[in-house]
C-alpha cells in the first residue's frame, strides 16, 4: 500500500472531478459577494496551515498532509457553516499524528491562538480550550472516513530526479530526501509509469520544483489529480525557469532563487548560496563526455498523459496569476514565480534571463509591470477597494459569510424569508 498508489484510499476515494468540487462550494456561493473570493480563501487557508506548520516546526510533508485533510474536509462542508480556523488547527494536530510526528495539543492550541489573533488575520475569538480542537479532530477523522494516509508529489519528485551532483549538497538542497536513518528513498519501486530511469536535475532546479509543489497546495489540485502528475507538471514548469539546454542561462539565474529563505528548511543549518553554486557549477564544468540527457524527451517518455500534465501546468499558472493579487507579506516567493511564469511563453527559455541580477520583490515588480522598483504598479490586480486581497480582508469576507448564514439559520421566521429573497435575487 505504501508504494501502491492505485490501491490506496487516496486514489480510490479522494480524487474527485470538478463537478464535485463545484457542488462542495454550492452553499458558500450563496453567501459570498464574489465567487472569486472563494479561490482566495483557498489560498489564504493554505497559507495559514503552512505558517502554523512552520511555527510548529513541521516537516513539509506534514504541512502538505494537513492541507489535504483541510481540502477533503471542505469537500463535504461549507466555510460558512464551520469555523475554518478551528478546522485548520485540528488538521495540523491530526496530520502530525498521521505522519508519526506528534505534538501536544496544548502547543497547537497556543500557537494557533497566537497566530490567528495577529492583526493581519484578525481572528479574535479562537478558543483556548483544548477540548474544542480535540472535538474537531474527532469529527474530522469521521469526515475523512478514517483515510489518513496521503500521497504527495514530493515522493515522485525525489524518486524521479537524481541530482547531477549529489556529493556537494547532500542534505541542503534536496528538500527532505534525507529521511530517517537506513530507510532510503529507493526502498520500493515507483508506483506509476515505467519505473525506469531518473532525471538529472540541478539542485537549484530541484529546489524550484519542490517550491512549485508546495505552492500547488494553495489550490484544489491535490483533490483533482494524482500526485505524480502534479509532480511532473511541476518539473515541466521548472524547465521554463531553468532551461535545461542552456547551462549558462540556468547558471546565472539560479543564485537569487537559491537564496530565498526556503519554506522547506526551517533549520538554520543550511548554507544555500554556497552549496547551490557548487552544485550548479559542477555539471557545467565537470560534465563527463557522455551525451547530456534531454529532459523534455525524458518527460515525454514517461508513461503518463502529457496533455494532462500540460493542463495541470496551466492550472498551476492560473493559480499564480490569482495568487499574485493576494498579498500577505512584503516578500513572497509565489509572487516571484508568478511573475516569471505568467510573463514567459511556455516554450520560451528566455524569461529567467529577465530576472538576472534581480534580488528582491521590488525588482521583480519592475520586471512584471515595467514600473520602477518598489512601486506598486500592478493596478490591474486589485480588489474593489483598489488594494490587494489581504488576509484581513478575507477574514472579513468569511465573517460576513458566516453572519449571513447564521442570519438565515437563526430561529426567527424572518430568516426564512431572507434566505428566500437571497435565493431569488441570485436567480
Amino acid at each position: 500500500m505504501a508504494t501502491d498508489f492505485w490501491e490506496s484510499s487516496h486514489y480510490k476515494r479522494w480524487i474527485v472531478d470538478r463537478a464535485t468540487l463545484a457542488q462542495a462550494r454550492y452553499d458558500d456561493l450563496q453567501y459570498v459577494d464574489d465567487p472569486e473570493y472563494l479561490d482566495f480563501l483557498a489560498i489564504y487557508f493554505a497559507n495559514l496551515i503552512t505558517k502554523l506548520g512552520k511555527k510548529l516546526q513541521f516537516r513539509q510533508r506534514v504541512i502538505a498532509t494537513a492541507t489535504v485533510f483541510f481540502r477533503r474536509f471542505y469537500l463535504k462542508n461549507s466555510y460558512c457553516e464551520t469555523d475554518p480556523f478551528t478546522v485548520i488547527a485540528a488538521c495540523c494536530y491530526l496530520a502530525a499524528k498521521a505522519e508519526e510526528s506528534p505534538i501536544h495539543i496544548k502547543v497547537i492550541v497556543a500557537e494557533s491562538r497566537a497566530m490567528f489573533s495577529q492583526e493581519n488575520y484578525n481572528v479574535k475569538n479562537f478558543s483556548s480550550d483544548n477540548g474544542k480542537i480535540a472535538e474537531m479532530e474527532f469529527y474530522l477523522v469521521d469526515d475523512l472516513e478514517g483515510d489518513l494516509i496521503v500521497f504527495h508529489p514530493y515522493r515522485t519528485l525525489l524518486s524521479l530526479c537524481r541530482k547531477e551532483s549529489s556529493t556537494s549538497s547532500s542534505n541542503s538542497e534536496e528538500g527532505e530526501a534525507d529521511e530517517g536513518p537506513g530507510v532510503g528513498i529507493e526502498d520500493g519501486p515507483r508506483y506509476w509509469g515505467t519505473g525506469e530511469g531518473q532525471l538529472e536535475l540541478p539542485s537549484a532546479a530541484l529546489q524550484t520544483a519542490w517550491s512549485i509543489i508546495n505552492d500547488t497546495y494553495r489550490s484544489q489540485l491535490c483533490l483533482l489529480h494524482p500526485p505524480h502528475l502534479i509532480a511532473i507538471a511541476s518539473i515541466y514548469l521548472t524547465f521554463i525557469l531553468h532551461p535545461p539546454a542552456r547551462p549558462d542561462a540556468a547558471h546565472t539565474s539560479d543564485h537569487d532563487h537559491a537564496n530565498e529563505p526556503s519554506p522547506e528548511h526551517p533549520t538554520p543549518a543550511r548554507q544555500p548560496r554556497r552549496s547551490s553554486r557548487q552544485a550548479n557549477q559542477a555539471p557545467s564544468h565537470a560534465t563527463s563526455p557522455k551525451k547530456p540527457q534531454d529532459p523534455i524527451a525524458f518527460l515525454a517518455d514517461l508513461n503518463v498523459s502529457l496533455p494532462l500534465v500540460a493542463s495541470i501546468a496551466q492550472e498551476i499558472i492560473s493559480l499564480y496569476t490569482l495568487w499574485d493579487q493576494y498579498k500577505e507579506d512584503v516578500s513572497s516567493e509565489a509572487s516571484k514565480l508568478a511573475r516569471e511564469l505568467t510573463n514567459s511563453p511556455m516554450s520560451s527559455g528566455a524569461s529567467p534571463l529577465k530576472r538576472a541580477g534581480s534580488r528582491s520583490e521590488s525588482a521583480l515588480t519592475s520586471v512584471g509591470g515595467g514600473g520602477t522598483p518598489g512601486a506598486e504598479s500592478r493596478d490591474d490586480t486589485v480588489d474593489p477597494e483598489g488594494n490587494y486581497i489581504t488576509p484581513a480582508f478575507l477574514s472579513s469576507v468569511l465573517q460576513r459569510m458566516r453572519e449571513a448564514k447564521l442570519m438565515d439559520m437563526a430561529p426567527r421566521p424572518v430568516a426564512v424569508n431572507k434566505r428566500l429573497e437571497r435565493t431569488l435575487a441570485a436567480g
Partner: protein
Amino acid sequence: MLDEWSTNILHHDPMKLYRAKRDASHRSVTSKYNILGFISSGTYGRVYKAQSYGEEGTIHAIKKFKPDKEGDVVAYTGISQSAVREIALNREINHENIVALKEVILEDKSIYMVFEYAEHDFLQVIHHHSQTLRAPISHAVLKSLVYQLINGLLYLHSCHILHRDLKPANILITSKGVIKIGDLGLARLVYEPLQPLFAGDKVVVTIWYRAPELLMGAKHYTKAIDCWAVGCVMAELASLRPIFKGEEAKLDSKKNVPFQRDQLLKIFEVLGTPDEKDWPGVVDMPEYQSMKRLDHFANRLSDWCHSRIRATQGYDLLRQLFIYDPERRLTAKDALQHKWFQEEPKPTWNAFQSVPQHQIPPHRRITQDEAPSMMPAPQNTSHQGHGHIAGGVPFGQSHSKPGSSNSFASQSGGAAYASGGAPPSRKKARLG
C-alpha cells in the same frame, strides 16, 4: 445586525451549526449493531461481540477505545497515536490473512472500530492443547498456522508496515481455520519515515517476542523484528509454552530503557551467546558491554527442536528465523518459500482441516460487561459473571498475574482486538 443567538455562536461556539448537522445525521453503534457480549479488554479499550442488524446478521468484533476522562467527566482529549495508526493502516490494507476493518464509528467521544469476527486465536489454541487436550498441536495444523501467519506478514511487509507486536494473542483464527493477523495499534509505516523509528516508541514488541537487536538497544530496526517474533510464535505453538520466557526489567524513574538481562539470557540459553562472527553488528550495539558480562552459552536449538519439532526442515526454518544478525535473518518472503512448507503434510487454507471436530478449540466465550458502557441491561440467559473468564479461555484478563512483572499484563491482556498492542512499559505515544 446580528441577533444575540448568532453573535453567541460566532464568539463562543463557532462549530455549533456543523456539530448539530453532524449529530443529526449520525447513526449510532447500537442502532446498527446488536451487542451480544463482552469479549476482552486491554490497555486501550474493550472488545465486544456484535451482530449487525443489516447484511444478514453478520457477526463482528467491535473495539471501543477507552474514552478519556477528566475526573468523572468524559472529555475530548485527542485521539491516541495508537488509534490513529490502527485506523489509518487498516483503511489502506486488504488481505485474507489480516483482520479486516469494516468501519469506524465516532460517537460520544469514543472511537469504535468494527472488525470482522474471528472465533479463535493462537493463544487460545495453545491453551486448549496444553490444558484441555494435553497433547501437542499436530504437525499439519502447526504448519498451516505458521504458513498463513507468514503469508499475512509478507503482505504487511510488502506494504512497508512493521507490525511490532506479533504474539499469540494478536493472531486470530476464524471458524473456517483462516489466520488473521490483528491489532495494528503498534504497527507503523516505515516507508520514508519523517522521524527515526526509535524516536516514536522507545519500546516495541512484548518482551518474550522481542528481537535481540531491540534488546541490545538498537536505535534503528527493520522488518526482521517481526520475523524474530514469528520464530517465537512458531516455537510456542510447537512446545505450547513461550520459548524465551524472560522477566522484563522495568523502566527506571527517568524512563530510561533498562538492559533486558533476563530476556537475553533466556535467548542465549537456547541459541548460544552471539559473537562477531554470527552478528558483526553486535559490537556496535549500545548494550554490547553489558552483554559481554553475561555467562556464555552454546547453541542447543537443535536439541530443543528434537523433541518438539521433529521435522528437520521445521528445525531449519526456526533456525533461520532465529538468526542473530537482522540482515541475515530469514525474511517473510524467503520464509514462505521454505522447504518445510513444500514437504508433506502441506499447509492448508483451513488450518483445522485435519482436526477432528471434537478437538477444535471451543468458541470464544463472551460475558456481561462489568463496565456496562456498551451493554444493554443484563440478559438473564447468558449470565456468567466475571469470575469465570479465566478458565481455559484466556480472554478478558485485564490485570497482571500476581507477582509477575508488567510484561505479563499485555501477555494476558486478551485478544488481538483489545490489547492495544502496547508493551506495558511503552511510554504512551498519546499526546493530548
